[in-house]
């Protein structure tokens, strides 16, 4: 059940020794051979594992989360470039690292937040954010 793989893929590659519960649920509850219904005995206790929606259905909640995610581009702790910087660089097409003045118009408020991060490079290790919020790992 374990694979001994040297993780040459670096930080971006995750080779866990076994499946986590959420992944087991994805695998064994709707995949595999099924016995004809008539030889099955009804089971109890299954509700333990069905609380998570296993299908991603886009809806209002998804949209709001994506809007939040866009908004997080501004937030300092991503260590990346902020939204105003992005917008500006998009307007100037290219030259993403070069934002000098504050942002303009509606973006002005963010100027201060962003300022401190402009010089940081983008190359430090990232982890995918907010795994814990959702149903896995």
């Amino acid at each position: 059940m374990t694979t001994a793989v040297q993780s040459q893929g670096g930080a971006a590659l995750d080779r866990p020794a076994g499946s986590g519960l959420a992944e087991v649920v994805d695998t064994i509850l709707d995949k595999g051979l099924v016995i004809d219904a008539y030889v099955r005995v009804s089971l109890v206790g299954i509700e333990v594992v069905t609380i998570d929606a296993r299908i991603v259905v886009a809806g209002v909640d998804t949209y709001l989360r994506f809007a939040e995610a866009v908004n997080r581009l501004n937030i300092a702790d991503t260590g990346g470039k902020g939204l105003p910087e992005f917008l500006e660089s998009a307007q100037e097409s290219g030259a993403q690292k070069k934002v000098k003045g504050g942002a303009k118009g509606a973006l002005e408020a963010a100027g201060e937040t962003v300022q401190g991060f402009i010089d940081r490079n983008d190359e430090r290790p990232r982890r995918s954010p907010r795994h814990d919020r959702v149903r896995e790992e």
Partner: protein
Amino acid sequence: MSSPSTQQGRPEVESAWYVYGIVEADVEVLPEARGVGDPPASVELVRSGDVAALVSEIKRDQPLGRPDDLLAHQGLLDAAAADAAVLPMRFGAVVGSRDAVVQELLTAHHDQLVDALRAVAGHVQYVVRSRYVEDTLMREVLDENPTAAELAGQLHGQPSEATRDLQLQLGEIVNDAVEAKRSADTESIIRALEPVSAATAIRAPTHEQDAAHVALLVQTSRKGELDDTVNRLARDWEGRATLRVLGPMAPFDFIVTTEQGPGG
């Protein structure tokens, strides 16, 4: 291995047989193997002709479905798949009697089971899931969608209660863009992995920021090639998406049940 006494004449707690999967009849089960239940039940083989069922005798009134039961089900099958051809059952297959395991499951479907076991022999399954790095993803989306970028600009710094409609508008655009990226990236991941796989199957995404979720049936002898390919993918996608590779596991995604009611 013989079953621990099916105490005839004590009908108050009847036994049932939990079935994990099907293997070839010459497989042996180690006495220390454990399966579902609390305490975990021992695992035995019920044979018929060339096939055998991996089963545990359990009490009929025993609750199943605890996290440990699920982990035991997959754990046992994954371990079996490492050494032998196995057809995993979906979780929760319980048969009323040992005789029914032999007759209704094994004997009734004997030839199909033999064929299916031959088909998966020498193969194991891997699951590859890729998850976008959120800020790279959002930046890409804004970069490629002027409307989204403009909405993001309008929303910025506004109190979120006052801008729900705009947020929904933005979120929907982002969602559509992410779905389009997911299809493209799933396709490209499958293209990369197809050469080392005997078969591939696309799984439904389990997270809205999934870039791809695919199952692969891989010849045991090609594990090294798979590793190389996955490592290359992970390097190519570094900073944009992460990869998670599960396996080797039993070939859950590649077992097809053809409908066969009791009437034939």
